[in-house]
């Protein structure tokens, strides 16, 4: 089936990117192992979908593909939440940095506040 070919090709491409990122030093070994398991696991599920039947039976879901979709959605929600928290943290750090620079610069430039403007 062509859909299997497309998916597996994409997963292998994603896998190759993960290896390249590891070589660049952008991700560490633990992240590489996680990504390898993720993409290889996804390829296995696409090639032999009947394997997911066992998972579906254990979880009490009707079809294997449904079980995969439910788990994926839950995992995506969790990752989005983590990214949201991370971004908010970075934004607050950025604000702190901008504030510190602004206050430091204000102390260094001679201000007119000590002598109110003459009009």
């Amino acid at each position, binding site marked *: 089936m062509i859909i299997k070919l497309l998916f597996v090709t994409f997963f292998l491409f994603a896998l190759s990117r993960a290896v390249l990122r590891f070589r660049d030093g952008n991700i560490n070994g633990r992240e590489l192992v996680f990504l390898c398991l993720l993409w290889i696991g996804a390829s296995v599920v696409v090639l032999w979908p009947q394997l997911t039947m066992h998972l579906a039976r254990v979880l009490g879901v009707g079809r294997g593909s449904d079980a995969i979709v439910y788990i994926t959605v839950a995992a995506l929600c969790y990752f989005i939440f983590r990214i949201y928290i991370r971004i908010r943290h970075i934004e607050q750090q950025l604000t702190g940095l901008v504030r510190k620079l602004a206050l430091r610069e204000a102390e260094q430039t001679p201000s*007119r506040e000590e002598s109110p403007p003459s009009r």
Partner: protein
Amino acid sequence: MPVGECRQDGNPRLTGPGVNLQWPPMASTAVQPLAADTFIVVPAYNEARVIRGVVAGLFACAPRVVVVDDGSRDATAAEARAAGATVIQHLINRGQGAALRTGMDYALAHGAQVIVTFDSDGQHDPADLPALVGPVAGGECDVTLGSRFLGEAVNMPWIRRLVLRGGIWFTRVVSGIKVTDTHNGLRAFSRRAAEVIEVHQDQMAHASEILDELARRGLRFREVAVKVRYSDYSLQKGQRSTGSVKIVLDFLFHKLWR
């Protein structure tokens, strides 16, 4: 200008290209000038057309005016400096809440006893300052909040009135305090209040956060009638009513994961 006397011709002349926001002459003949340890903090983002007039209007009564230029791409900082204000510049835009906190930190570091926050778009009236500062300077309360519903809201669109009513209800339910106006940029803080109030909301939700902090820290506050005048400029420049959805989400998210 002699000490102990407020300039009577000190109305902000908010005239720029296509902008006419002039406040009518101050009604009172003897406006008490504010003490030297009262700082006016004005957060400003791309307000070059009006900031000079706003600062000039403030200097009629206030000796210390601090404009926080929140990463403007126009001449806001230069205009504010030309008007005589102390200017603090954020290198990049971080939002009104962030700019307010920066201005408050600066004022605290320079010995402020009372800190007033004042919007930069010319919608507030400097003539309201003495009534706003008085109770805080006199130690009667820690914070005063300007209320346009106790005072006067000139040319307020009905949709804005509706959204603000929603804000009042929201504040009562979520923060448990009863106010007649929320998200009014005109407030006065005692030094102690300014030191303890945390402003983590960089964007517009800081106004809800400040009210929440008042309740959480048990600060004594009072509302003071003020005038807010909506002009074409301030409406075009200011918040959209749909922004209230983002404010509610930002505020609730932070409250949940503090």
